[in-house]
């Protein structure tokens, strides 16, 4: 796995120019309650790896809003995953969970990281893993450890190893950036003097569809992140925009104006097999497939104001989904298909709303006023969005209960159009 990941990262590095001082910085602006106290003891030997692996694990877990990392003073002898755990001592430090590990240099120049997770309350080991890695893989390994801990303790998959895409506008440059979910390791997949919008991850996480204006009009591309190859998927007469992948990755829904107006069409992922899905005099756009591939949710102003509708993915009569308010756009389904996130105009503010599709309850979960492009984490726990703070575009992440909030910004640039990538193996 790690070898494959490394090969992938190597390929990306060859194709793009990393930008110095471009990294997203994250600020946590709100926290949920209650958070599980967890002690992550420094791994003996980890100093050899440069960046501290345990501090990355702790930062990951804290960012989720579900954990509180405890300060662990230097212990002598330093415990490792092989030590006998003194549960009473960790209990007295108020830890509910504990991570112990070690780092050892191997003769081949690589390192072995071993760790074990413990339930301090139940006084039981919850398992552990050993990774062999090079120094370049420290962050990736730390994210995998955090994912393991998160899943064992919450029962849900962690998203620390996933990636995010977003667009940075820096002066007259537009950069399509890919970064780890924590904002680190940012690399540009595409740099242009014309706008780039609407990045959408393929379900396998290997490609991005997006809209580029490099031909003085919107054209839809599919960009392979593995080798940097770009294919024009929709460049019909008029505008081509709003790409959305079907869950099996074989088709794309797009908005085209080739027959007048803005209407939703279906294409094969190679651009062939064009088929029109909507047939209205309205703006029909922002298509999104449901996770089961049965429905396409979209924005339409066929009722006089922009609202969210859905229709069978095979085509058919649309049904209106949102009713409250005069401006509801950008539908995004949660991974479990139970919740619809979208942007609503609420007392003059564009904010993120969540609609519970079973009981029709609507909840607004942000307090900013220029929110755009909500994007669910693949485990459904957090929503990444673009907003404007002090006149600058920043990314914000909010837990789906609205309690945990984070802000991600870059220096000297506007960040927008976030898209959270899928789980990848």
């Amino acid at each position, binding site marked *: 796995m790690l070898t494959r990941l490394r090969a992938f990262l190597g390929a990306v590095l060859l194709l793009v120019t990393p930008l110095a001082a471009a990294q997203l910085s994250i600020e946590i602006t709100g926290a949920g309650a209650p958070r599980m106290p967890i002690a992550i003891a420094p791994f003996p030997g980890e100093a050899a790896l440069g960046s501290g692996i345990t501090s990355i694990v702790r930062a990951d877990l804290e960012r989720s809003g579900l954990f509180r990392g405890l300060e662990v003073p230097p212990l002598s002898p330093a415990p490792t995953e092989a030590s006998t755990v003194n549960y009473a001592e960790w209990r007295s430090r108020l830890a509910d969970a504990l991570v112990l590990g070690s780092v050892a240099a191997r003769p081949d120049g690589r390192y072995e990281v071993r760790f074990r997770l413990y339930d301090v309350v139940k006084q039981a080991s919850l398992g552990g893993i050993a990774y062999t890695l090079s120094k370049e893989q420290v962050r990736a390994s730390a994210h995998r450890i955090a994912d393991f801990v998160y899943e064992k303790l919450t029962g849900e998959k962690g998203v620390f190893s996933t990636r995010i895409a977003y667009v940075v506008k820096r002066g007259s440059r537009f950069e399509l950036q890919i970064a780890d979910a924590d904002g680190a390791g940012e690399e540009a997949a595409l740099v242009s003097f014309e706008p780039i*919008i609407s990045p959408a991850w393929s379900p396998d996480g290997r490609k991005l569809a997006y809209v580029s*204006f490099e031909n003085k009009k*919107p054209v839809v591309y599919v960009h392979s992140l593995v080798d940097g190859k770009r294919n024009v998927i929709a460049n019909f007469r008029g*505008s081509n925009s709003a790409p959305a992948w079907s869950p099996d990755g074989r088709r794309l829904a797009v*908005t085209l104006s080739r027959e007048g107006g*803005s209407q939703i069409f279906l294409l094969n992922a190679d651009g062939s097999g064009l088929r029109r899905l909507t047939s209205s005099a309205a703006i029909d756009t922002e298509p999104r497939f449901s996770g089961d591939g049965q429905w396409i949710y979209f924005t339409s102003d066929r009722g006089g104001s922009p609202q969210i509708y859905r229709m069978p993915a095979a085509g058919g009569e649309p049904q209106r989904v949102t009713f409250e308010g005069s401006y509801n756009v950008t539908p995004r389904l949660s991974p479990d298909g139970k919740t619809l996130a979208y*942007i609503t105009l609420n007392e003059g503010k*564009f904010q993120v709303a969540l609609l519970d599709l079973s009981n029709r309850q609507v909840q607004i979960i942000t307090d900013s006023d220029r929110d755009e492009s909500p994007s669910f984490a693949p485990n459904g726990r957090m929503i990444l969005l673009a907003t404007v703070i002090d006149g600058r575009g920043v990314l914000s992440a909010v837990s789906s209960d609205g309690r945990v909030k984070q802000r991600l910004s870059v220096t000297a640039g506007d960040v927008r159009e976030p898209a959270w990538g899928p789980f990848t193996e």
Partner: protein
Amino acid sequence: MRLAIIATLAAAAVAAGCATTPEEQAPARVEERAAKPAPVETKPIARVDLTSKPAAASPLKDPNNILSRRSIYYDYDKFDIKDEFRPLVEAHAKYLRENPGAKMLIQGNADERGSREYNIGLGQRRSDSVKRALAILGAKDNQIESVSLGEEKPVCTEHAEDCWAKNRRGDMLYSGEY
């Protein structure tokens, strides 16, 4: 202008030659030869004729021609062409009719408020409405492509209405201009 100055100088030289007095040149032979009037400049004087037509400058670029104007502005959430822009659309329709080889790209734009993709739709409505008006006035469908830039290419970047009004816009561009 430059020619006129040369002509004036030539005339002055002729006058100076004529003004040379016999008294001054009388005693010495050498001086007599040197004092001969300078030969009159025989190079023909270039004529400036303002009644002839200027070299075929494009009416599309002539600031005095309505065709040099390319932008149509819209009210909030509207895409109908306001009366004040009718003469402009009519002039471009006439140009397209008279120049069947001319091709036009109409870029519709929207202000920054709301969804980027929905704003592509709003800009498209604006460019489509210009295309429709030009077609009704006789331009051919294959001469015109209407597209949208949504909110992505603002000419004004303040977050206020007078700026937004400048960005709710349709631009008519001919081949080679985009």
